[in-house]
């Protein structure tokens, strides 16, 4: 369905071309990054993954340090018990009765449902194929739990990508968000992330999914008298549990 609204592409671009005094075709100087072929991208990506693997211990520490600076409450869990303990305490502290989570692989590793339901909270998977006993409006949830696709040590950022079973709203609607991070998901820098996503795009024949969200700490605003207020439209409290190395 291509509706023509406004100026046609041809005439718009022709006038830009005229403004530039260009005759069309390839850029004047060839721009190296766009000339790179798939095999070179793959090579760079595999080098990156190698490096990340070697540095994992250090990167996990760095992620924890920076994430804390960025406003996350960070827990580096020593083992799976410690992860569950943290979640238990979080539920007690927030007194959350309604919890939403996404449907991700990580929840097979971290059995949050049993834990939370055992404590009397309702858990609802926010996905078309719903599960859990939760018959409540997700908008009224007090806690949202997600895994991440990546976490970036440089910026203390959790990266979420769309997949089946992952609603964009789990990390956005509830006032408290908990992100579970596996050490293998930790990247060093923004550059690592963009390289891997770019590879994904070209590997898939030109698709990397509909969105990619960076979450770095709680939502905030300083729009009135430049006074920082934590908790604008998104969560006011964000927790990151970095699971123990397997």
């Amino acid at each position, binding site marked *: 369905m291509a509706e023509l609204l*406004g100026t046609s*592409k041809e005439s718009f671009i022709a006038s830009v071309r005229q403004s530039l005094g260009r005759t069309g075709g*390839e850029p004047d100087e060839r*721009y190296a*990054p766009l000339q790179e072929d798939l095999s070179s991208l793959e090579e760079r990506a595999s080098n990156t993954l190698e490096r990340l693997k070697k540095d994992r211990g250090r990167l996990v520490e760095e992620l924890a340090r920076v994430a804390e600076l960025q406003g996350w409450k960070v827990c580096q869990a020593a083992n799976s018990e410690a992860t569950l303990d943290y979640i238990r305490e979080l539920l007690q502290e927030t007194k959350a009765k309604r919890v939403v989570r996404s449907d991700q692989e990580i929840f097979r590793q971290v059995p949050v449902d049993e834990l939370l339901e055992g404590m009397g909270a309702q858990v609802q998977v926010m996905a078309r194929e719903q599960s859990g006993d939760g018959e409540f409006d997700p908008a009224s949830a007090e806690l949202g739990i997600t895994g991440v696709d990546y976490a970036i040590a440089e910026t203390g950022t959790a990266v979420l990508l769309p997949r089946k079973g992952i609603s964009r709203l789990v990390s956005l609607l509830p006032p408290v968000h908990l992100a579970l991070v596996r050490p293998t998901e930790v990247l060093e820098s923004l550059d690592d992330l963009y390289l891997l996503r770019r590879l994904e795009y070209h590997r898939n024949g030109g698709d990397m999914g509909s969105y990619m969200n*960076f979450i770095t700490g709680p*939502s905030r605003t*300083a729009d009135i008298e430049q006074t920082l207020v934590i908790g604008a*439209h998104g969560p006011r409290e964000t927790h990151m549990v970095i699971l123990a190395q397997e």
Partner: protein
Amino acid sequence: MAEVKTQEFQRASVKALADAKLQSLLGRSMGTFDGARQEAIEELTPQRWEEMREKGRAIKRHTLDNLDYYLELLYDRVTQNGGQVHFARDAQEARNIVGQIARSRGLKLAIKSKSMVSEEMSLNPYLEEMGVEPVETDLGEYIIQLAQETPFHIIAPAMHKTKEDVSQLFEEKIQRPNLKNIEEMAGAAREVLREKLVNADMGITGANFLVAETGTLVLVTNEGNGRFCTSVPRVLVSITGMEKLIPSLEDLGVFMRLLPRAATGQRITSYVTHVSGPRRSDDEDGPEEFHLVIVDNGRSRLLQDPDLRESLYCIRCGACLNICPVYHKVGGHAYGWVYPGPIGAVVSPVMVGLNKAKDLPHASSLCGACRDVCPIKINIPRMLLKLRTQLAESSDSTQRKVSIGEKLMAKGYRRLMSSPKLLSLTHRLGRLAQRPLLRKGLIRTIPFPPFSRWTRSRDLPPLASKPFRQIWAEKLGKER
């Protein structure tokens, strides 16, 4: 197009200077911004910062020099992602496009995340007229919308409002009386807006970057409203100037380090949202339709002039506003159009017409601070000079800024400075003439034109009792 009041710069700035409340607000807040920016650069290390600036500038230069190529690429890739791209030559056309999308799909409630281009288009009144309710969801923009004003600053649109102003506004417009502290106000706005955010059928956003290679739109926000706008409504319309392009996804690594640091002194903002088209069939949620509206609206005039093209490298961080001594005094509204401050003084005249904005290129002391702080090293002073030259040399008398009198003065000055004898004679005469004008060591007013106007808002230091040439001859020169 948004109402153009650039002609009134002089009047508006005199008014701003006399506004004690505004002056105290500006005095209090302008320093904070730049302090945060400097700290963030220290943390990254100044060397790394310089490296990023050079890279960012080179990428922007390359993209703008080959913009036709990258627009074509972006079009293909957004289309491939399942989105639709529309092109608008001017504000009117851009409004029509957004209007037609809303009308043909029967959309009623539009949540908006900050978009300067939608300010250029005066989109909100247009939507209201056709029965679509536009709601600004960035707190600053929301305040401005309630007050029916225009943004005061690129990234802090409501910075001219005190908390008392906001409290009163919320009482009158959203029936939330007696809000005392800022947290309560933000809370009230959150409550009112939450209902809109979850019920809207149309999302409208701007863009911080457009990645040609992958057809990706990037939004940088702190509040989370941008995420709502791109997740909840069934139709997403993003409106952007055509200069927002960058070639590769990997270029974002550079700009993500530059923008948050220059804008708010953050390592990164709370949210960065990358949108590559509408939801796919497997996605749990997200917009069914994604429209990208690419707007020219005078930008090709900037593109066309090799001397002004670099103004389009701007990533709208606001750092040049925060450092500018003129902006510090007159604030954002005096500039009279969507883009204030040093960068506004370059782009507004070209976008609205130079003859309507003759004062703007002169609203600068050419101190160069804007260029020094700019994350893309945009040479704003050079462009301001270029516009001044254009004004001075224009054959069209409605454009010409320089009067015959000024031309004569310039001639006289040249003569004076090239003759040492004449200079020293004038100096001696001047010292005599200034005597009756001195008040507490300064010349406060000169009672005859053209000087009377000049001294209306300025004090003039008197001529020194000994000219430098004499001091040099008697003393300094001998000490060498």
